[in-house]
């Protein structure tokens, strides 16, 4: 073998020391196993073993129509929250790419500052805004409209949750959008595309990876929301986490609570598996310079 040939790959074997990068992830893996793996395992075991071994907890869950209604509602509300987040975050994230660095900093702070405030505090401020005698309704009445019922409705829950989750949509969207080469839009126009057409055929497809990333984060976080639906919602907008809480903390039915958690987890995985082929981007490179 001549000295100039690469020698990093000895014949028939992995180069020595290939395990080293994995060793670096070990602390994180241990932590994940301890705080996610172990509790998850406990939940699965308890759902199958309490009060006795068997699938009685799952039979109970699927046997009671109210549980299925709540499960379905949990997904519906999460879907609405995701949609509201996409629609409101998209122009905001675009604006962040279009302005100068100073204004962008202000826009980023506007996203992040509410994020640093406790979720309970933010939800309580939504109570003040949304309640029947609250700011929104008094405003509506003062201009001659009849009030709308927002608090203890699904609409109220969606509004509150969307506001809390908005940063998780804006930030991934922004990071994808800032990599899109705007000169492509100019190219599209020179080829005969009016601005709206150029947007839908060039900009939007290139921004989709950001939409997907944000949507997955928001949707999954929304599925497990507890405080906001509990404070802003009523009995007709209960989400699954509220049911879990009442089963576990009020009724001490750890097995049933565990079964609900497992069902939610399985349903989420199923949905992601269905969505994955759509989201898999068909292009190799997302319009980066």
């Amino acid at each position, binding site marked *: 073998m001549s000295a100039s040939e690469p020698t990093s790959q000895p014949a028939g074997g992995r180069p020595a020391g290939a395990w080293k990068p994995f060793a670096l992830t070990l602390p994180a893996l241990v932590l994940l196993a301890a705080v996610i793996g172990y509790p998850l395992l406990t939940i699965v075991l308890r759902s199958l073993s309490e009060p006795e071994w068997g699938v009685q907890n799952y039979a109970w869950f699927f046997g009671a129509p109210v549980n299925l209604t709540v499960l379905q509602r949990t997904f519906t509300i999460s879907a609405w929250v995701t949609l509201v987040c996409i629609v409101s975050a998209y122009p905001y994230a675009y604006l962040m790419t279009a302005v100068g660095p100073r204004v962008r900093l202000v826009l980023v702070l506007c996203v992040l500052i509410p994020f640093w405030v406790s979720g309970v505090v933010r939800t309580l401020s939504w109570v003040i805004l949304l309640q029947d005698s609250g700011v929104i309704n008094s405003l509506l009445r003062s201009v001659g409209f009849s009030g709308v019922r927002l608090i203890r409705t699904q609409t109220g829950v969606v509004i509150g949750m969307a506001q809390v989750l908005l940063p998780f949509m804006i930030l991934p969207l922004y990071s994808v959008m800032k990599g899109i080469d705007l000169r492509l839009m100019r190219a599209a126009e020179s080829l*005969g595309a009016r601005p709206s057409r150029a947007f839908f055929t060039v900009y939007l497809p290139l921004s989709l990876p950001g939409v997907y990333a944000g949507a997955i984060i928001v949707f999954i976080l929304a599925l497990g929301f507890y405080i906001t639906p509990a404070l802003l919602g009523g009995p007709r907008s209960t989400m699954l986490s509220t049911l879990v809480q009442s089963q576990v903390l009020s009724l001490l039915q750890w097995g049933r609570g565990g079964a609900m958690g497992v069902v939610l987890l399985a349903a989420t995985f199923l949905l992601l598996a269905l969505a994955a082929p759509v989201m898999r981007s068909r292009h190799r490179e997302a319009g980066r310079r």
Partner: protein
Amino acid sequence: MNPGQESRGAAIDLESITKAYGDFKALDGVSLRIEPGEFMTLLGPSGSGKTTTLNVVAGFTDVTSGKLLVGGKSVVGVPAHKRNIGVVFQHYALFPHMTVGRNVAYPLTLRGIDRATRQSRVARALDMVKMGDFAHRYPSELSGGQQQRVALARAIVFDPPLLLMDEPLGALDKKLREWLQLEIKRIHRELGTTFVYVTHDQEEALVLSDRIAVFNRGRIEQIGTGRQLYDEPATLFVGRFIGDSTVLRGEARSDATSTALRIAGETVTAPRRLAGEASPVMLLRPEKLAIGRPGQGVASGTNRLSGMIAEAIYLGSGSKYEVRLADGSTAIVRSPLTGESFGLGEQVELCFDGADAKLLADDSTADTTLT
């Protein structure tokens, strides 16, 4: 493309186009007529207004004042997407989420052309740029030269009467650039479309163009064929920008028929005088200067200047010398392979015929804008 149904090029008229950004005039009264089917190059250093002119024609930049006609019709205020002008960008600007085929089909899809026609026109355009086998690849799988050829196909597939190219070969290496220059020339011949080509590379401009418009500080200094610009530069800037040149400056004295320059104790004369008050300088092309050892009496020319070899460059076909003159300025001389060769630091004598010296008005800004 079938003969007889060639898409003919459009004429372009720019009439005193001005584009101001606040106090700064990016374009200052630019007037230019481009004939149908002509290959016109806008040449100039960066910031000279050539790209702004291209953007004005493409519709990306609106004008502050002036008239712009494409094919005899005013297009001022017409948005870019309605102008039907092909544009090729330096950065290729291919859509990364579409295959080569879909990229090239894009302008046809926008025009509502049916699928069968679309496919045949895409194939024809890709064949023209010799990229017919790449229709199913994505832009990221292609080299820079291949991407630019696809971009060219996309810009000509809808048969625009005018094609604009903004330094399309600027990001490519020299060999590829020279080959693509010939390809672009061939495509121009085959299409018969008007081409407007922006570059800062004077050699590229000379290779490609029917005519060249030399831009400097938002104005056109001169419009002409490569030969006209080289042999008869209208301004010192043009003379310096196109080709190698030696500029002689000195204490000037003019009489009715001739001009003499006194340069660090030596005097050179040219049998002409410059009209007007401006102080004259002499511009000499490298092949008009003869080089020899002092006192050897080089055959050609009546004027002599002594100097020292500051740089000797072997070019293969001959040698190029940079000669430091007595006043500190630099002369550029090309000598054929058969001639004598000189070493660094050697004392030499330069001779030229006064009739070969171009008399031009001095313009101190010509040097600063060039560097």
